[in-house]
């Protein structure tokens, strides 16, 4: 009887630990950061609410400009340079797997950039719409989430630049062989 009770306790403890581990893994996967706001931050948020709101609006406007211009450059690189080059290489039986992979990766990352930017902007728009004086906790929580999404967009831009540079290198190697 006593043995069964102990076993039961062990099972309960085991499942509790597993649940905690599962939650942590899930939070890690979804990028949720459990960053709590300090009392000083809460006070600063309420005190400088208007200034923060204004700087977020400026950021939103600047981001929109950056997105439009970068998007145009990425589109030019993919549709007016990389893709026509690969078509021409196939026609001349000079196509390489590396260049085709590069094109596919560029196209995939560009699509991610478009989607990730929309996700980030939706959060930023919700953040701008929130009144930081009334809901400082909610505002800060959303701010942390928006930061994570902004970071993803930044990573997309870095990846796209790296892929464009890699394409240059691959074409340089091909040129040497001609």
């Amino acid at each position, binding site marked *: 009887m006593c043995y069964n009770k102990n076993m039961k306790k062990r099972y309960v403890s085991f499942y509790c630990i597993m649940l905690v581990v599962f939650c942590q893994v899930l939070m890690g996967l979804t990028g949720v950061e459990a960053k709590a706001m300090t009392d000083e931050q809460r006070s600063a948020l309420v005190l400088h609410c208007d200034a923060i709101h204004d700087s977020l609006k400026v950021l939103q406007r600047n981001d929109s400009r950056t997105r439009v211009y970068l998007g145009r*450059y990425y589109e030019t690189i993919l549709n007016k*340079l990389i893709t026509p080059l690969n078509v021409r290489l196939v026609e001349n039986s000079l196509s390489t797997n590396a260049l085709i992979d590069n094109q596919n990766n560029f196209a995939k990352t560009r699509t991610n950039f478009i989607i990730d930017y929309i996700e980030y902007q939706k959060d930023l728009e919700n953040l701008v719409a929130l009144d930081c004086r009334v809901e400082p906790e909610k505002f800060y929580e959303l701010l942390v989430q928006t930061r994570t999404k902004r970071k993803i967009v930044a990573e997309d831009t870095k990846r796209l630049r790296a892929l464009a540079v890699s394409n240059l290198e691959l074409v340089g190697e091909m040129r040497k062989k001609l």
Partner: protein
Amino acid sequence: MTKGGRNLIVLGVVSVLVAMGTTGVSLAIYHGSGDIYLDRSRPGYLPDEEEVQEETPEEEYEFSKSGAVTKEVLDEYVKALETEIKAIDLYNEPFDEGALSDERLGL
């Protein structure tokens, strides 16, 4: 009120409701697709004056899909791609994390 007059009012009301419904659907698509975030003609997002002056519509280069592949052709391609990369590099660290940091927002 005559029957014709009543029908005219009903037609007017129905037309307004249909117009409101289709406008609502259009706005939902405009917002949901994310086009709203690329629309720089919406209030508060209009390009700056100097930005408009900067934009001189030049004919954009496009690499030809057909023809022989020579060193000269690849040089032309490399030059065009380098130009695009340089243009991208003008945006120093786009979407950098710092812009939303506690320090920058004064928190």
